[in-house]
């Protein structure tokens, strides 16, 4: 099948492994080594710090809200694009991809310009007492913006490939719209959907740039895990910084494992 000499193949494969080990493996090992440099006690101690716990909590809440919302929006957008014909479809597709091509920092800035004190809606918001920038809503909005494409992008090609015959069959057999979605559409897209949610979640928890702009870095209040890592690091608190970072690295491991499991499932579904 392949006519390259054995030696060439060995060298190339070894090179690929070496590069991956140096660029990805080594840093990951360093994270855990640094986190555990002063032992497990110190590791857990720095993780159970009140401010750290609040950062973990904020990250979890943010991810939960933004992933749920993106799940619903993603399914709706994918359904509209894959199953209907309408004018402006390619424009909608471009809009969905926009967060991929815009720097996250700009995404954050947009929300500051919209909802900040000097922003468009700033004065109106001040009257209501509702805080968006430097508070949870802003962080969630920025995260949602950055992670929007994941679910929709995963589903669109899948739904386009499946077409609408299954849904039509269900309707002709007497199923309601809800029954059709719940019993036919959803099972058809479930592995793709899970995959999209997984990627979306990983990005939501790890997002730094956009969140950094709208967060305001108030300790124990508006710091997510990535922001907290940076603050701890800048304060030369390496053990704590790497301890929190190790949690994020762990998330990456979990995501990768689940991802390959899902890939396998999708291929065998």
């Amino acid at each position, binding site marked *: 099948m392949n006519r390259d000499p054995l030696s060439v193949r060995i060298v190339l494969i070894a090179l690929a492994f070496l590069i991956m080990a140096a660029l990805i493996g080594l840093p990951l090992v360093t994270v855990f080594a640094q986190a555990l440099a002063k032992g497990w006690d110190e590791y857990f101690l720095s993780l159970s710090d009140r401010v750290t716990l609040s950062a973990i909590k904020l990250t979890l809440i943010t991810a939960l809200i933004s992933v749920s919302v993106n799940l619903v929006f993603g399914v709706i957008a994918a359904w509209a694009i894959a199953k209907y014909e309408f004018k402006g479809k390619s424009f909608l597709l471009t809009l969905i991809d926009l967060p991929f091509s815009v720097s996250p920092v700009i995404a954050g800035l947009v929300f500051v310009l919209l909802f900040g004190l000097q922003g468009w809606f700033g004065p109106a918001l001040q009257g209501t007492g509702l805080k968006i920038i430097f508070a949870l809503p802003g962080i969630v909005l920025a995260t949602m913006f950055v992670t929007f494409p994941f679910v929709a992008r995963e589903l669109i090609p899948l739904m386009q490939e499946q077409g609408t015959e299954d849904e*039509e069959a*269900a309707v*002709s*057999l*007497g199923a309601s719209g809800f029954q059709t979605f719940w019993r036919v559409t959803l099972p058809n897209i479930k592995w793709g959907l899970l995959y999209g949610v997984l990627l979306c979640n990983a990005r939501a928890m790890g997002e730094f740039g956009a969140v950094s702009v709208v967060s305001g870095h108030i300790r124990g209040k508006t710091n997510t895990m990535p922001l907290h890592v940076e603050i701890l690091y800048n304060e030369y608190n390496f053990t704590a910084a790497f301890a929190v970072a190790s949690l994020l690295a762990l998330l990456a491991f979990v995501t990768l494992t689940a991802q390959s499991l899902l890939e396998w499932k999708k291929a065998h579904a």
Partner: protein
Amino acid sequence: MSIDAIDITKDFDGFVALKSVSLSVNRGELLALLGPSGSGKTTLLRIIAGLEWPDAGDIRIEGKSVLRVDARERGIGFVFQHYALFRHMTVFDNVAFGLSVRKRRERPSEADIAKRVHELLELVQIERLVRRYPSELSGGQRQRVALARALAIEPIVLLLDEPFGALDAKVRKELRRWLRRLNEQTGMTSIFVTHDQEEAMEIADRIVVMSHGRIEQIGKPSEIYENPANPFVCEFLGNANRIPLAWTDGKMSHPAIDLDAITVKPKLVGAEHVFVRPHDIDLVKDAAGAGTVRFLSIVGPIARVDVEVTAGEKPIEVEMPAHRLQRAGLEVGAPVKLAALKGHIY
């Protein structure tokens, strides 16, 4: 149930799929919508099912308009071209689907559903596959599941879109006969779409020939075959040789083919062509004949002969019983004389 389509017009972004099509389907009839792809036959079927809406016109079932009735409430069984089986459900769950989505009040008990599903699977002869998934079935088996699933809701009408198109010849033949029997036993009005004229002629009570969004002809298979209404129908149903004509004093002729057996209505004098089916041409070996045999094929009982009458033009196709050809001792290159026994002039 009787079905009436009245002046149905449908336009897809500038492509006119149906132009003012009217059609009446009798109760209990097995009707074929026959035509090439793009003729609008599937669109008409989908409009009857409620999966598509016409721009103008009306669909009536038993005389009542159903345009305002949603597809899910029309109670029409629809079998899709690619079966559209629910891939994550077993054969059992696929067939049970239509019953299990009914409102609680109208839904049969679990036991009744199971009983019904088994009856249907027996009817389509795949009871042993009840626990399988669609991906584990052959094309013919999938088609049977699709049929059983559509029949489960006890539809008032059964619509089938190219039901046997993707199957191999043997299974196709078997399922065709099965559909014919089902129609006879249940008396359920059924309409199927096909582009295969042989399929339509074999099982349909009546055939609707369509092209370019219009109905070209409606009639019994034999009627349509014997008396095609226009050149399109003539050429679409079975082969036909298109023979150019020369006219002298109201009498038609062709330099190489004897056309004396064909009578011409006065108003058709001057027509450009006569259409003659390959088996309506008589062929005799004759050293003075103007035709030359270019190709011979004897497989099975019917022999096919291509005869060149005008150099460079499409040869004339002739069909005859194989034993006659053998007796005549024809071979490629032999000179022959041709005579048309019957033809259609438009």
